[in-house]
C-alpha cells in the first residue's frame, strides 16, 4: 500500500534527522541500556506466537485457514515430482516425508561434511538437488524452494528445536553469536538491544518479539506471503541501515545457527503466521 511505504519513509526520515523527536527517543532508550554480552537466551523465553492477537493465532493453528499451508501443499507436489537429469523425486530416496523428514528441520542449520561448515535447510535441499537429482539449485526465496522448505519444516511441527554445538560447529556458532551481539549499521544497533533488552516493548506501535526462528519459513502478514528466516534477517539489517549479506551468505547461516540454538527446546511451528 502506498500509504504504508510513504509513512515508513517518513518514519525513517524522522529517524535519520538529528532533530527528529522519534530519533532522539530511540537513541535515549538504547543508549541507556548497557550492552548485553554472553549467552543471549532471554529469561522466560516465549514464541512470537504468544504475542499475537487471538485471531492471528487462530489463523496459524487452523491448517484450513493458514495461508502458509498453500506453500506446504506446493512443497508436497514438488516432493513427489521427478526432476533433474537423474529423473529422481525427493520421494524416490526419502519416501514419505511424514516419516523421513520428521525432526529434520528441528536440527538445522547442521554441519555438512562436503561444505565443511553448517548449512541451513534451504542449502541442504539444494545440495540434494545438485548432487542427487542432478538438477540446478533452486533460487533463494523462489516459490519452489520456500515450498519445499515449508513442506519439510511442517514435518517437524510440534517437535523441539535441537541444535548441538560441537567441535565442528563451534567456530560458526561463535561467529553467529558475535554477530547477534555486535552493534552495526548507521543506527548502530545490535540484535540484543531490541530482541533481548527491549522485547515486549513497542517500537512505533509494533511489539518487539524475542525473535526466535522456530516457525520458519513462515507466512508474514507484512509480506503477504511466505518467506525465509534470511529474508527476515536481511530486512532487520536494512532496518538498522546495515549492509545486507546476499542470500545464502556464510554470515547469515552462522547467525541462523546461533538463533536456532538460542531457541533450543522451543517447538517448531512451521509454517507459522506472524505480523
Amino acid at each position, binding site marked *: *500500500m*502506498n500509504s504504508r*511505504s510513504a509513512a515508513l519513509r517518513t518514519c525513517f526520515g524522522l529517524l535519520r534527522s538529528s532533530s527528529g523527536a522519534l530519533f532522539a527517543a530511540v537513541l535515549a532508550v538504547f543508549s541507556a541500556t548497557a550492552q548485553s554480552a554472553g549467552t543471549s537466551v532471554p529469561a522466560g523465553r516465549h514464541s512470537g506466537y504468544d504475542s499475537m492477537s487471538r485471531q492471528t493465532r487462530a489463523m496459524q493453528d*487452523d*491448517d*484450513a*485457514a493458514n*495461508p502458509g*499451508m*498453500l506453500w506446504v*501443499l*506446493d512443497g508436497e*507436489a514438488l516432493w513427489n515430482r521427478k526432476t533433474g537429469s537423474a529423473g529422481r523425486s525427493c520421494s524416490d530416496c526419502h519416501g514419505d516425508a511424514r516419516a523421513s523428514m520428521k525432526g529434520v528441520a528441528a536440527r538445522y542449520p547442521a554441519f555438512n561434511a562436503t561444505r565443511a561448515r553448517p548449512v541451513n535447510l534451504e542449502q541442504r535441499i539444494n545440495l540434494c538437488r545438485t548432487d542427487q537429482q542432478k538438477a540446478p539449485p533452486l533460487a533463494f526465496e523462489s*516459490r519452489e524452494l520456500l*515450498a519445499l522448505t515449508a513442506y519439510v519444516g511442517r514435518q517437524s511441527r510440534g517437535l523441539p528445536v535441537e541444535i548441538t554445538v560441537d567441535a565442528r560447529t563451534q567456530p560458526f556458532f561463535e561467529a553467529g553469536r558475535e554477530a547477534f551481539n555486535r552493534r552495526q549499521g548507521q543506527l548502530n544497533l545490535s540484535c540484543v538491544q531490541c530482541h533481548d533488552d527491549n522485547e515486549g516493548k513497542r517500537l512505533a506501535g509494533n511489539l518487539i518479539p524475542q525473535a526466535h526462528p522456530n516457525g520458519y519459513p513462515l507466512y508474514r502478514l507484512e509480506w*503477504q*506471503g511466505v518467506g525465509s528466516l534470511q529474508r527476515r534477517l536481511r530486512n532487520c539489517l536494512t532496518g538498522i541501515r546495515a549492509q545486507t549479506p546476499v542470500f545464502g551468505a556464510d554470515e547469515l547461516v552462522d547467525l541462523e545457527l546461533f538463533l536456532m540454538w538460542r531457541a533450543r527446546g522451543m517447538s517448531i511451528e512451521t509454517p507459522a503466521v506472524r505480523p
Partner: protein
Amino acid sequence: MARALITIPASARRGEIIEIKALVAHEMETGFRRTQYGVVIPRNIITQFVCTYNGVEIFSADFHPAISANPYVAFSTIATESGTIACSWAGDNGYSHTESVAISVG
C-alpha cells in the same frame, strides 16, 4: 502453481450444519500500491467466489481489493446428501480456478 485448499468435515450426518473453509493462492494486488519509482502496480484481484453442492449454488461472494492476499472465506451449509462440493474463483485478467472435494453424508 495454482493452489487452493477446501476443507470440509470428513463425514456428516444428514441435516447437520457443516463448515466449509476455502483458501486460494492469489496476490490480490489492490491497484493502489506503487513501485519504489512511483509507478502504480495494476489491480489484479479475484472478484467472484461461488460454491456449489452437487451443482446447486449454496454460497457466493464478491471480493473487492480490501480482501487480503491469498483470500480465505469460511461459511456453512446443511449437509443434505453425498456428492461434490465445488468452489470456483474468478477475477481480473481472465483468472479462473475450480477445486472440488467429495462430501460423504450418512
